[in-house]
């Protein structure tokens, strides 16, 4: 049993190494003064300076940020509606179609999504003149569609765990929709919406393939710029960019973990207090 546990820990450690060694090396090299990756030229923050003074990078980052905020917001609103419908409306016609359409984007290969949306946009432009050309609008629409699917899964899962008697009590007390949803359901599922929005933002901010298909001139996103730089070879300012993103995500994840642990402790304390009051 002892030996078994040791092997288990070693195997799991290998898995974590697969996830983390590349990121750690990336961060270390982002402080390398030398332009050559194989040569260590001493510590330096030179690449961070070059990154933050690179007009092209800042422009692309700004576009990506705008796209991600809009796509995540639209995706969260529509995804919440979808998740709600799928968990609360019971059986209805077209349910199977809606489930399929809301699940498929989760696993659809990006090249297929990108190509199909591009051909749609071109066809629509020919037929009804909208959307005129391709740019940020078409990227937002494309991203909002897959964001919808991810948020719908999260919201549906949350609503399935939800104690429905609270909603029923609100209805018995004379509450009506949409007030029950806004005052009872929404506050309970709010953490799931926040998680869904953040996930949607991340996926949109990270997307390369779909954006490449549906973007137009002047609307290059950050991943598109990174991709064109990476294809030309190693460029040290990308190390700096990667390290910055890792740092932001690490801070966010740590805060989320602390918040979860704190909420859990408070819940246990509340339960114990309730129990001792009963006695």
């Amino acid at each position: 049993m002892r030996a078994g546990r040791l092997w288990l820990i070693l195997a799991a450690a290998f898995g974590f190494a697969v996830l983390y060694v590349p990121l750690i090396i990336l961060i270390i090299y982002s402080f390398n003064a030398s332009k050559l990756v194989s040569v260590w030229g001493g510590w330096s923050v030179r690449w961070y300076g070059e990154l933050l003074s690179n007009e092209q990078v800042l422009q692309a980052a700004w576009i990506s940020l705008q796209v991600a905020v809009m796509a995540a917001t639209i995706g969260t609103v529509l995804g919440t509606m979808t998740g709600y419908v799928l968990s609360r409306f019971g059986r209805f016609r077209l349910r199977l179609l809606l489930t399929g359409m809301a699940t498929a984007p989760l696993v659809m290969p990006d090249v297929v999504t990108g190509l199909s949306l591009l051909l749609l946009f071109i066809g629509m432009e020919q037929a009804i003149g909208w959307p005129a050309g391709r740019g940020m609008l078409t990227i937002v629409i494309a991203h909002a569609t897959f964001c919808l699917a991810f948020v719908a899964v999260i919201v549906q899962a949350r609503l399935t765990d939800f104690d429905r008697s609270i909603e029923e009590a609100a209805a018995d007390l004379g509450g009506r929709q949409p007030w029950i949803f806004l005052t009872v359901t929404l506050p309970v599922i709010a953490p799931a919406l926040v998680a869904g929005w953040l996930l949607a933002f991340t996926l949109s901010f990270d997307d390369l393939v779909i954006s490449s298909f549906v973007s137009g001139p002047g609307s290059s996103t950050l991943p598109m710029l990174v991709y064109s730089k990476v294809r030309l070879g190693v460029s040290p300012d990308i190390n700096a960019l990667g390290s910055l993103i890792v740092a932001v995500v690490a801070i966010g994840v740590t805060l989320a973990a602390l918040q979860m642990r704190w909420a859990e402790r408070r819940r246990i304390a509340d339960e114990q207090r309730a129990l001792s009051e009963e006695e």
Partner: protein
Amino acid sequence: MSRARRLGRTAVLGVPFVWLLVFFLLPFAVVLKVSLSEPDIAQPPYQPLFGENWEYLGSFANYVFLTEDTLYTTAYLNSIWMAAVATLLCLLIAYPMAYLIARSRPATRLTLLMMVVLPFWTSSLLRIYALIGLLNTTGFINTVLLWLGVISEPIQMMQTDFAVYAGIVMTYLPLMILPLYATLEKLDETLLEASADLGAGGIGTFWQITLPISLPGILAGCLLVFIPAVGEFVIPQLMGGPDQLMIGKVLWTEYFNNRDWPVASAIAIAMLAFLVIPFMILRNAPAMRGEV
């Protein structure tokens, strides 16, 4: 049900439904249409499907072309093979991780779970870039091995199948771990004790109890990795060799380099036709319906 309430229901259902209909389902109809058209040197570069008097001009020529040129069938089969191998590697690496997380104390469990999720929240493109920096001939691994004198000249790891497997495994590992963890977490400790009491060894208990119970998680995790991996573009493009064919890369080339939209569309439809089956299994998998 009052009229206002029915109207509200229709709106809540209708808005996302119409959105998905227009921006998810309709595009596939357009792709299907273009895949049946003839390529043309025009803007857009394909001929209309219907003539002036609405006579049907489409044909399956593009699909026939796909089957005739071995490039496409090779790429197609190679993608499925590579995605399958990468999925299996992912499963082998993820299982001990998920098991360890499920069996650890709550505080440790949360930390380890966060560690699984963290890379997933960073940029996958930048993670691929980081992995390239590790595997390059001038990369970290080769530099260290050369310096230690283990090897006398750099090992060629990039532009190989190994690099593509490594890329897919690193990118999709969290998607495998999470459903596995979800099933293993529910594993009742008393079952393991009962099995041990009845004389089963560690390996016996694993095959008889743990593995069967975690099967839904294995299924969901494998499909979540396999389906997108088949159509992966970035990883084979940046890490695989120039002659290494994967269908996502071929589609991209047909569209961006050859500007052959009808053939690109036919590839997309062929890819979908193959992925429908694993997708149907995934959609009906208990793990995807929150029943785990």
